[in-house]
């Protein structure tokens, strides 16, 4: 197992290398010039050139890449072009809200979606199934921000049950922290409930036609246990896959949700960094998200082996 983890971690190297090269080239080959932006409104051409020099943007691209790469390898993410802070500081400031929101969302989504999916599969073709599937397609189809605004309109603005915007850090108290996350979590989880419920249903339907489910019935097992003891565990691998995928996809929704609710998380940091052409921040954030994606994949693989004894590493 340990050997597997080490091997998998090693296997992330080429993936991360591709990510690094791609992101680096993408930033360097675009027409935008951070130096001009940094130099400000009334800067002269010499000032811009000077800043370019200081940022190392005049070096050949390959040199720039290696300088950056070797710093990354030493754990140095560099310093933001704009904020007078290191990238590591910026990220660590922003990580808590994003993590909280993502965690809440995944928890809620799994807790709601898996039972829904099982129910739909059990009542395949019934009105319940149709409703779950209908909700699921709707969940995919309504943009996150429309859901967000609707929720704010109803629950924050009209009913005044929840705050409209903002975020409270957990060390200011778990109560406010959770309270402020209710609406964003609901907003973001709709699409994941849709995704996971749908996958649960599909996977369950497939498993329910398997021979061992027939065997279980042939033993005289009651239907509930057939569903949960035999079917769900076997159906779990694709469900876990989609949850893992969901976590990876979450960041897209997080960007929008954080904008709608003014949550100072990584999603907004990225958008701001992109708008400001803050190369070190963009590179670091994208690299970090990619690494998280790879790690989640690894984690998902490990969970597979817990769920399915046939999978051994």
């Amino acid at each position: 197992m340990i050997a597997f983890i080490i091997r998998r971690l090693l296997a992330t190297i080429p993936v991360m290398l591709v990510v690094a090269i791609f992101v680096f080239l993408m930033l360097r080959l675009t027409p935008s010039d951070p130096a001009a932006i940094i130099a400000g409104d009334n800067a002269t051409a010499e000032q811009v050139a000077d800043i370019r020099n200081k940022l190392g943007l005049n070096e050949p691209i390959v040199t720039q890449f290696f300088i950056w790469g070797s710093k990354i390898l030493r754990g140095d993410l560099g310093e933001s072009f704009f904020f007078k802070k290191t990238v590591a500081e910026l990220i660590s400031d922003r990580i808590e809200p994003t993590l909280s929101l993502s965690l809440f969302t995944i928890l809620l989504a799994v807790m709601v979606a898996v039972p829904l999916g099982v129910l739909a599969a059990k009542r395949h073709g019934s009105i319940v199934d149709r409703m779950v599937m209908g909700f699921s397609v709707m969940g995919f189809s309504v943009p996150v921000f429309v859901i967000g605004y609707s929720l704010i309109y109803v629950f924050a603005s009209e009913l005044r049950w929840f705050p409209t915007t903002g975020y409270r850090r957990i060390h200011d108290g778990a109560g406010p922290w959770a309270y402020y996350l209710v609406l964003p979590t609901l907003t973001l989880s709709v699409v994941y409930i849709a995704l996971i419920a749908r996958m649960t249903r599909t996977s369950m339907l497939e498993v329910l036609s398997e021979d061992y489910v027939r065997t279980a019935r042939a033993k005289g097992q009651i239907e509930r246990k057939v569903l949960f003891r035999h079917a769900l565990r076997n159906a779990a691998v694709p469900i876990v896959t989609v949850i893992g995928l969901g976590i990876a996809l979450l960041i897209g929704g997080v960007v929008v949700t954080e904008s709608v609710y003014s949550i100072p998380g990584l999603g907004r940091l990225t958008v701001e960094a992109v708008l400001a052409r803050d190369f070190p921040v963009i590179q670091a954030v994208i690299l970090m998200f990619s690494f998280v994606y790879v790690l989640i994949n690894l984690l998902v693989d490990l969970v597979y082996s817990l769920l399915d004894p046939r999978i051994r590493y």
Partner: protein
Amino acid sequence: MAAPVLEVTNLTVAIAGGGDRANAIENVSLTVMPGEIVCVVGESGSGKSVTSQAVMALLPKGQLRISGGSIKLEGDELTTKSQPAMRAVRGKRAAMVFQEPMTALNPVERCGDQIAEVLEIHTDLDAKARRARVLDVMRSVHLPDPEQMAEAYPHQLSGGQRQRVMIAMALVLDPALLIADEPTTALDVTTQAQILKLIREMQVRRNTGVLFITHDFGVVSEIADRVVVMQRGRIVEQGTKAEILAAPREAYTQMLIAAVPSLVPPVRVPITSQVTLETIKLNKTYGGRSFFKPSGRVVKAATDVSFQIRRGETLGIVGESGSGKSTVARCIARLVDPTSGRIDLDDVDIARMSERKLRPYRRRVQIVFQDPYRSLNPRRSVGQSIIEGPMNFGLPHGEAIERARNLMGLVGLSPDALDRFPHQFSGGQRQRIAIARALAMEPVLLIGDEPVSALDVSVQAQVLQLLDSVRKKFDLAVLFITHDLRVAAQICDRIAVMQRGVVVETGPTANVFANPQHDYTRALFSAAPGQGFGHRIGAGKIDLVPAV
């Protein structure tokens, strides 16, 4: 006379929404007495499995439903029982063993727990008592080291062991009726023999009534007390084993029995023509490390395989699953690249040739695959499939069509059928088309990779005869891969027996069958069910019938 365990009367199962026919089975009546094994035998689509599922009330919901008749288990009517009431019957009074032990066992649960589950459902035993009963029943089905086996997951067991677990699970509560649905079909012949013996033993010891579903007359002759023959959802004929096998009354039964090849090979003249194919120390290993896949385990699929095939000769490679026989065939067809060794085709070594250089030689080796449903591109007409090869080698379209028409006639199909698509043909017809496609290339070597294994026994005989006749007509060298000793006995001039990638014995078919040298060969032959049963192919009872 004791009361029957199972009494099925005029059972009819309707297919929802119709289909080819309104009912999956119609007016089926049969009985199983205590301590009796009743074999239900029939080809695919005969309704034999539906009968067994109906008894257990396990018919697929919404697709099939009982529309008439009665099923009585120990005098207790089942068709009117609710599902909860049926749950009390299933597993306790009637149990079932399925065909595929890998998929019939829950892959994520330990074997012991799966057996114990039956006890959990139907008894009040505590965990300890359950455990004792589980080990007990596991011991009784001769599972080695039951303590360890109980902790194992299904995938850690061999196919035979898994089927023993299934049987243990079925028998743990001593049901009155055991339904075995093709329980040995997925197993190798040596394992099959052991399982059949086990079922016999358990059944005798516990006086269980067994309803045994099978398509294999060898198995029937081995195990049955009475035989029920089914065709297209109806019972054709039933009687004692002796009556049915020795003196079938109905033409269909007669045909079925006649189509079973004999295990006794006919006498064949040794062939001494020139050597078409010679393999020398052919090796194929799979896996191994690479940069992207650092964990590869090395599997030796074929080791030092050497043999010759002469013009007009059929060499059979027999062996159980995993013996490497298909790997050898695929190496020779260059569908996989051999790891080392020579493949001399008319004295040219094609083993390591690049794809470009190989191209002219491709046409000389053609292959017919096992699965008739997958060996033709479903989106292309039969004609397009046949002419593709010749046209690849420059034959003009018109001539290629002409050749295809001739070949269609030769394989017993109407030349006008060239425009049709594969789905419009039956399995046997598709194998004929596949043979025509191979012949269109004018090969010198024809490889048959289990070409009749997926076919019903009646069709199988026809295809075998066709293969034999084209061998003669075109003076082909034929490499015939099979796991079926009966088929091998009838069609091969010489056979090579493979075990775990190694050829353990080669020789003229008659010699090998009569006087096997290697231990494995002997074990293999003695395991074949129904030793004395069967007929010679081409013994005159069946003719090639143009089927279109």
